[in-house]
């Protein structure tokens, strides 16, 4: 009940979106914009993290930046695929640990989906199972 994201995005290493899911609102475009701007912060963090980014702590980028309504968290895999999660600022009960778990699940679901022989890396993600995992961590109205 408490780990609910408002928007989840998966970005390819070339920085185009593979998958974006938002809670249905009027200004979905706002989320797309937020995710897009957060990529700059992600790039900055990646270049400053050391060469051995094997530790989960270093894959997890933490809070990227807060806006007045939302907080944006980032996570990057060793293959430079990025996950971005947006949560509401009012959701103060969400702890860092829970965000980490969320990313871990996302990463797991991504890997499972990638193992599908019919998915070509770099394609838009249409996998039902992956979507279900994401829906499971998003806020349901």
């Amino acid at each position, binding site marked *: 009940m408490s780990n609910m994201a408002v928007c989840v995005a998966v970005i390819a290493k070339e920085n185009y979106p593979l998958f974006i899911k938002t809670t249905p609102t009027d200004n979905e475009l706002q989320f797309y914009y937020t995710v897009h701007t957060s990529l700059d912060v992600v790039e900055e963090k990646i270049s400053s993290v050391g060469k051995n980014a094997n530790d989960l702590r270093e894959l997890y980028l933490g809070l990227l930046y807060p806006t007045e309504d939302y907080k944006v968290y980032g996570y990057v895999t060793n293959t430079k695929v990025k996950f971005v999660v947006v949560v509401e600022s009012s959701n103060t009960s969400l702890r860092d640990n829970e965000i980490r778990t969320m990313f871990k699940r996302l990463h797991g679901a991504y890997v499972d989906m990638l193992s599908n*022989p019919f998915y070509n890396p770099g394609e838009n993600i249409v996998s039902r199972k992956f979507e279900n995992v994401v829906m499971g961590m998003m806020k349901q109205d």
Partner: protein
Amino acid sequence: MSRQAARTGDPRKVNGELFTLTYGALVAQLMKDYENDDEVNKQLEKMGYNIGVRIIEDFLARANSGRCNDFRDVADVISKVAFKMYLGITPVVSNWSPAGDEFSLLLENNPLTDFVELPEGHDSLNYSNILCGVLKGALEMIQMDVDVKFVQDHLKGDNITEVRLKFIKRLEDAVPVGED
């Protein structure tokens, strides 16, 4: 003997993923090459047949299971010994026809299809069709002509994967069908 026992144990877990990914790559490549689901099904069955005629020798050498008295024994050996030995799963034998010449194998989980989701528009693809070929080829080498096909498939939305085996006839002077 002990080394063989280790092979059938848990170390298979790591090789299993490689096997799944390899089979997946194979099917994906076949789909790209032939672009026609039925053609891919046929090719998978052909490949399975070629595997089957060879794997039966390996199986008989390793399993030491003795003669089967009737088709029911065959079904039990296939599900409890053969599947367990090669895929590490034990399908359930069920749905016997009244004449005792047809039965179904129900597979709860299929190691070939871990992580697989069929793409849109390919509903007639029998992803694990290689299994049908393997069974047909193997049984043909022990003088049984069987027809094997998928009835239900987990990948297509059914709850369970079901393979139906139908005994057609006994083969005398079994010479394998010429492989073109």
